[in-house]
C-alpha cells in the first residue's frame, strides 16, 4: 500500500511540475464556471418556487388568474409563462409545449412544486358565471400546509369575490327593474345592457380586491431543512457541477497521453523491473488519476462556495456523487489506455470524449431542456448520472437516498471499465 501512495504522489508531483497543467486545472475551469453560470443568470437572485401552469384556455381571464396567483405569493415562478427564451429557468424541453401529462410527471419527479390546469372555456365561464373546476396537482403534505395551494385559493377567492359582486349587482339591478314605472324606467335597456353592467361590477370588484390593504409577504429561506421545495434553477447551481464534471473529464482523461508517454520514455517499463507487483503500479496510477479528479472538483466547487452558490443541505450526498463520477472517469481512462497507441491518438480521444460526453450529459445546460431523443442518448454519458445526483441535492433538496441511483450506475460502469483496464493494461 505504501508503494501505491509513493507512485500516486510521484505522478501528482510530475503533473504539477508542468506549469501548463495549472492552466487546465485551475484557470480554465474557474473562468468557464463563472462565464457559463453568469450567462444563465448567476446565483445571486431571489429564490422562487417553480409552479407549472397548463393554460388550456388562453384567454385574458386565464392570464389574469395566473397574475392573481402571483400577486398572492410573489415567490412563485410560473412555467412556461415566465420561462426565459432558452427555457433554462423552467427546465422545459425546447422542442415541445408543456402538456398536462408532462407536467404531472414533473410534479411526480419533483421538477416542479405544483401543477395548475386552467381548463378550456375558463374565460367564457367567468363571463356567464358558470361553475368550472381548476385542477391542482401537488405532492405537498396537506397536513403541513401548501403555500402554492394557498396562493391559488387566494386568487380564486378574489375571482369568485368579483363574480359574486357582479351577480349581486345584477340582482340589485333586476330588483330595480321589477319596480319600474313609466316615470322611472328600468336601469337596464335590455339583457345585453345587464350583462355589460354585471361585468363592469365584476371588474371593479376585482380591482378593489386587488387593492386590498392586507397582504402576506412570502420569503423563501436560503437555508432550508431536508424537505426543501423546488426553487428556480440558478446559473451557478448548474454551472458549478456541470463545469466541474467536464473538467474532471478533461483532467483525468487528459492523463491518457501521459500514460502513453510513460510507455514511450520507458519509465513505465522501468517500474515493472522494480520489485513491485503489477497491481501496485496500476493502483498507484489509478490513485493519482482519482486524486487529480477530486482536486478538480474541489477547485470548481470551491469557487462556487466562494461566490455564495447554494449547494443544498446534503454535502455528503454531493461528495458521494463526486467520488462515484471521478472513479468512473478514472476507470474509463484506464480502460482506454489499453487501446491507445500514440500520444496524438490519446490527445484527440480525451478531448473528443470530454467535449461530447459533457454537453449530452447536461454539463452545459439542464438535461431536461434537451430534446427527448438527445436525453435518451445523453443517458449513455456518465455526466448525466452525476448531474442528476447534483441537481437532486442542489435544486430538489435531495439527500443520500436521492443520489444513490445515479451513484449506483456510475459505480457499475466503473467496475466494467476497471475490468477491461486491468485485464488489458500494457506495461511494455
Amino acid at each position, binding site marked *: 500500500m505504501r*508503494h501505491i501512495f509513493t507512485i500516486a504522489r510521484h505522478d501528482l508531483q510530475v503533473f504539477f511540475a508542468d506549469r501548463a497543467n495549472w492552466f487546465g486545472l485551475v484557470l480554465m475551469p474557474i473562468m468557464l464556471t463563472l462565464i457559463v453560470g453568469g450567462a444563465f443568470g448567476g446565483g445571486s437572485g431571489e429564490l422562487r418556487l417553480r409552479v407549472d401552469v397548463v393554460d388550456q384556455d388562453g384567454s385574458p381571464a386565464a392570464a389574469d388568474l395566473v397574475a392573481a396567483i402571483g400577486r398572492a405569493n410573489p415567490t412563485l415562478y410560473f412555467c412556461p409563462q415566465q420561462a426565459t427564451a432558452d427555457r433554462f429557468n423552467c427546465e422545459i424541453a425546447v422542442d415541445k409545449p408543456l402538456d398536462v401529462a408532462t407536467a404531472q410527471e414533473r410534479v411526480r419527479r419533483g421538477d416542479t412544486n405544483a401543477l395548475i390546469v386552467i381548463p378550456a372555456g375558463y374565460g367564457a365561464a367567468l363571463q356567464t358565471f358558470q361553475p368550472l373546476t381548476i385542477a391542482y396537482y401537488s405532492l405537498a403534505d396537506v397536513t403541513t400546509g401548501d403555500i402554492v395551494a394557498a396562493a391559488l385559493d387566494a386568487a380564486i377567492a378574489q375571482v369568485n369575490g368579483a363574480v359574486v359582486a357582479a351577480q349581486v349587482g345584477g340582482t340589485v339591478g333586476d330588483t330595480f327593474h321589477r319596480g319600474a314605472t313609466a316615470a322611472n324606467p328600468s336601469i337596464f335597456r335590455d339583457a345585453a345592457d345587464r350583462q355589460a353592467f354585471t361585468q363592469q361590477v365584476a371588474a371593479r370588484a376585482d380591482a378593489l380586491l386587488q387593492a386590498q390593504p392586507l397582504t402576506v409577504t412570502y420569503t423563501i429561506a436560503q437555508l432550508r431543512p431536508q424537505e426543501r421545495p423546488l426553487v428556480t434553477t440558478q446559473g451557478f447551481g448548474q454551472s458549478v457541477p456541470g463545469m466541474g464534471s467536464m473538467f474532471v473529464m478533461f483532467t483525468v482523461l487528459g492523463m491518457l497521453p501521459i500514460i502513453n508517454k510513460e510507455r514511450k520514455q520507458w519509465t513505465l517499463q*522501468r*517500474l515493472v523491473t*522494480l520489485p513491485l*507487483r503489477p497491481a501496485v503500479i496500476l493502483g498507484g496510477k489509478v490513485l493519482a488519476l482519482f486524486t487529480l479528479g477530486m482536486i478538480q472538483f474541489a477547485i470548481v466547487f470551491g469557487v462556487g462556495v466562494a461566490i455564495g452558490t447554494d449547494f443544498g443541505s446534503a454535502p455528503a450526498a454531493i461528495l458521494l456523487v463526486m467520488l462515484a463520477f471521478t472513479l468512473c472517469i478514472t476507470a474509463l481512462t484506464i480502460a482506454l489506455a489499453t487501446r491507445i497507441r500514440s500520444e496524438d491518438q490519446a490527445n484527440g480521444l480525451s478531448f473528443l470524449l470530454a467535449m461530447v460526453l459533457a454537453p449530452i450529459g447536461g454539463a452545459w445546460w439542464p438535461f431536461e431542456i434537451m430534446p427527448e431523443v438527445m436525453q435518451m442518448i445523453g443517458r449513455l454519458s456518465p455526466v448525466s448520472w452525476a448531474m442528476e445526483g447534483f441537481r437532486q441535492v442542489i435544486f430538489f433538496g435531495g439527500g443520500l437516498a436521492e443520489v444513490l441511483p445515479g451513484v449506483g450506475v456510475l459505480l457499475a460502469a466503473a467496475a466494467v471499465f476497471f475490468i477491461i483496464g486491468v485485464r488489458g493494461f500494457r506495461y511494455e
Partner: protein
Amino acid sequence: MPDWMVEATGLVKTYQRRDGSTVAAVQGIDLHIRRGEIFSLLGPNGAGKTTTIAMISGLIAPTRGDAKIGGHSITREPLAAKRLMGVVPQEIALYLELSARQNLEFFGRLYGLSGRELGRRVDEVLDFIDLTERQRDRLDTFSGGMKRRVNIGVGLLHRPQMVYMDEPTVGIDPQNRRRILDTVKRLRDEYSLTILYTTHLMEEAQELSDQVAIVDQGRIIARGSQGELTQQVGEQDRLIFTVGQQKVEEALLRRIEQSAEGVTRALYDAPAVGDADGAATAGTITVFARRGRRALPGIILAINDASLEIGSVEVREPDLEAVFLHLTGRALRD
C-alpha cells in the same frame, strides 16, 4: 560448481503479427554469468539483445524457458529475483520534469528505502555519478551524458548484486562515453557487481568484457572470453580496402581468395547512402588472411587488375568484429 549469478535456459520469445503469423525475437538462448564479471551481449541492432534482457529482468514473460537470478526464478519468484538486480535501460527512463534528486528518491522509495537510509544512498549515488552539484536541477536542463549517468544511478540505488545495462552509451559524445565505460569497470572492480552489458559496438565489448556472447537473429552464435572467440577466426588478420563507389564483381573476390598468399576469405561490403546529409559510405573489400602483411601485394595487384582504385588500406589484428564477420558474413553495423 560455478557460482552463477544468472542462469538462463532455453529462453524463447515469439510475437504474433496482425496477420496471425508469428515472429521469433529470441530463439532459445542459454546464458550463464558468474558473479563479479562483466558479460557482454554483442550483436547488431535487432539481434534480440534487448528482448533477452527484458525477459531476464522480468519486464516480459518468456514464451518458453526461464532465468534464475541469484537462484530465484524470474517467472516464479519475480520479486525476490528483482530485488537482486538493477536495470539500466537503453532509453532515458527518467522523469525529465523532476530534478536528479527527486528521480533518485522516487525510485529509491520503490526499492524499499526510506528516511535517512534513502537520503544517504541518494547522496552516495549522486557522488558516484558525479552529479552532486546539479542534484536540484531539472533533468530537462541536463546534457545527454548527464541524463545517462542518472539513468545508471537509478539502477544502483539499492546496492544490487547485478546490473543490466542495455546499450548505455547510445547517443552520447565520446567524453561522456569514456566516463560511462569507466563507471562500468569501477562497478565490477570496486563493488564486485555482476554486469550484463549489451552493445552493438565491438570496441566496448572488447574493453569491458570478461565474457562475450555474440547474438544474431535471436540466437547466440558464439560465446567465451575474447581470446576464445578470436581463436575461432584463427591467427588471421583482417585487411580492409576502401574502394569508394566503384562496383566490385564477385569474380574479383574469388580471384583474391585464389591468388593471394594466405587468404582464406574475401567479402565485399557495398557502399550505401547512410547519414542524414546523404553522404555515401565507401564500399569496402575485407580479406581474411594469415600473415596479412605478406598477402597485401597480391591483393593490391588483383584489385588493380580489376581497374579499381584503392582509397585506403587497413590491417587489423583478430578482434570481435572479425569474429562476427567470420561467423555471419556481415558487419556488426548491418
